[in-house]
């Protein structure tokens, strides 16, 4: 989809930049100015008034510092104080996503609405066909009683004037697994058990009500500490996320204070080798199919929402896992920070003792902006380990399956397909594959449509980034030629 990020999402970047700026300028002494600086007197207002805007910005700042809006016990706690608490904590927040209730406009509950196009006709097919008797005639026009409406859509189907419209709730519509829903007061809440951290609600809410709890302050603190060795693990979707080349970016990250930079595409090569071997073994055993396992959002979806598919999910670990394992073997004392497009990597990291923090490209971008670092001007540097074409193509839809196919070769009959984006329909399809079978035996699943290059933590347009990924693939060696 080629729709640029909405203004609420752009505001998130600005907030992150401010958070870094206030950290660098005085360890958050001035943090309470952020809402005022982002919504200055006489400037633009996006909600009812400047004061509500600022109040909500405060909650968004809290989230960027790693605190959930619902953690607030005293409304007078200042951002300065939250900043100090963030700097003092040893463990980062375990909460990941939340909804700022005061920002959620509580998009209307009833999903069907009768518009002005209603002619108050004699036949009244809407009323006749409504199974819940939710429609009454008020002032010569049909009206739906939201308490009775079950959103079946019959009225919309039968109205000859197309007068009934369906008003979606953006976040609920976007959520592939029904994890976000309304409480009694009409405000949205996320159920952490169900949530797969795809980030789709975050991207879709036009009010910016859904926030993520960032680990940016925790990492800033470590970067400022000369005794700590912090290593950046760059996800392969990084191509095109910043101006300049990937070699310039290594230089830029070192300027930010990272001691070393490694490429997760190297781990993706290992995933490819292991997954290809696992596939061959499974087919020899007569299994009907295997799905990929590297997308953590899909992994959790399979676990919680698609139990039918679970037995088919590959046991091979993810590129992040292998990269971190290698890193910690070589540099056991370092702090490993995964930098990628993904929010779901946060819970994968929680179960991986080798990964300490997860940041998004956007968060790294904010650090660069506030530190005044221009990537193109940074000294280009090389990676110590060279990744192959297979690993480099992981972040685009079809890339993982393609990599496995290339290594399986003629050692097994492989019929690949790619599920490009998890949504309600593709989840249904996966269930079908599991129960009824299909013509495919190798199923790649990526939660983000387009692949990781379209992840919620990206800066660049997915299309641009995908082009850069393909160019980067072209300059890489082939994993098949690699001897180890």
């Amino acid at each position, binding site marked *: 989809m080629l729709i640029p990020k909405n203004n609420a999402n752009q505001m998130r*970047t600005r907030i992150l930049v401010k958070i870094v700026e206030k950290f660098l300028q005085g360890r958050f002494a001035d943090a309470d100015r952020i809402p005022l600086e982002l919504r200055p007197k006489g400037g633009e207002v996006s909600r009812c008034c400047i004061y509500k805007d600022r109040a909500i910005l405060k909650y968004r700042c809290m989230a960027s510092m790693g605190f959930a809006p619902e953690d607030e016990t005293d409304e007078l706690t200042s951002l300065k104080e939250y900043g100090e608490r963030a700097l003092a904590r040893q463990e980062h927040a375990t909460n990941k996503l939340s909804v700022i209730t005061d920002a959620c406009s509580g998009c209307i509950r009833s999903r069907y609405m009768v518009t002005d196009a209603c002619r108050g006709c004699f036949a009244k097919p809407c009323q006749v066909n409504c199974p819940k008797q939710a429609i009454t005639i008020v002032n010569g026009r049909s009206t739906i009683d939201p308490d009775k409406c079950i959103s079946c859509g019959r009225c919309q189907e039968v109205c000859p004037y197309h007068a009934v419209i369906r008003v979606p709730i953006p976040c609920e519509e976007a959520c592939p697994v029904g994890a976000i829903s309304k409480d009694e007061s009409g405000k949205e809440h996320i159920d952490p058990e169900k949530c797969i951290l795809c980030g789709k609600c975050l991207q879709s809410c036009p009010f910016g009500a859904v926030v993520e709890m960032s680990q940016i302050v925790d990492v800033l603190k470590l970067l400022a500490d000369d005794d700590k060795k912090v290593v950046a693990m760059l996800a392969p979707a990084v191509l095109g996320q910043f101006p300049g080349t990937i070699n310039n970016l290594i230089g830029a990250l070192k300027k930010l204070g990272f001691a070393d930079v490694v490429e997760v595409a190297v781990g993706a090569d290992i995933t490819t080798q292991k997954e290809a071997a696992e596939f061959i073994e499974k087919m020899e055993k007569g299994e009907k199919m295997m799905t990929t396992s590297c997308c953590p959002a899909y992994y959790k979806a399979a676990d919680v929402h698609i139990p039918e598919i679970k037995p088919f999910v590959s046991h091979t670990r993810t590129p992040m896992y292998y990269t971190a394992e290698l890193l910690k073997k070589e540099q056991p004392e370092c702090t490993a920070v995964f930098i990628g497009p993904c929010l779901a990597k946060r819970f994968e990291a929680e179960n991986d003792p080798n990964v300490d923090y997860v940041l998004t490209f956007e968060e790294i971008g904010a650090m660069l902006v506030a530190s005044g670092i*221009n990537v193109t001007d940074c000294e280009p540097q090389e990676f110590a380990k060279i990744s192959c074409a297979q690993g480099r193509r992981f972040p685009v839809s079809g890339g993982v399956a393609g990599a496995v196919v290339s290594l399986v070769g003629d050692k097994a009959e492989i019929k690949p397909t790619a599920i490009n984006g998890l949504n309600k329909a593709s989840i249904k399809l996966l269930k079908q594959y599991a129960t009824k079978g299909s013509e495919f035996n190798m199923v790649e699943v990526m939660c983000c449509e387009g692949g990781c290059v379209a992840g919620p933590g990206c800066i660049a347009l997915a299309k641009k980034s995908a082009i850069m990924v393909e160019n980067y693939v072209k300059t890489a060696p082939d994993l098949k030629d690699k001897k180890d």
Partner: protein
Amino acid sequence: MEKVKIKICCGTSCFVMGAAQIQVLEFAPPADIADKIEIEEARCMNHCKNTTAKYNRGPFVLVNNELIEEANFEKVVNKVREILNQEN
């Protein structure tokens, strides 16, 4: 007729603050302006460095040499339309 020149700043500051998303103009420009614009990627124009924290006014885009601050897709398209309407 001469095309309207859109210079999107792609220095790190502007790129991160939102210029990257304005590049959608290269792929899916509104139909009415699609063949009337010329898009160019610019290097840092130094607006982000003028005074302290000037990057807060980014991303910067030049439309026929008119500077747009805190630019987004909407603002750029509106400026282009304004220029085209003047010419007619």
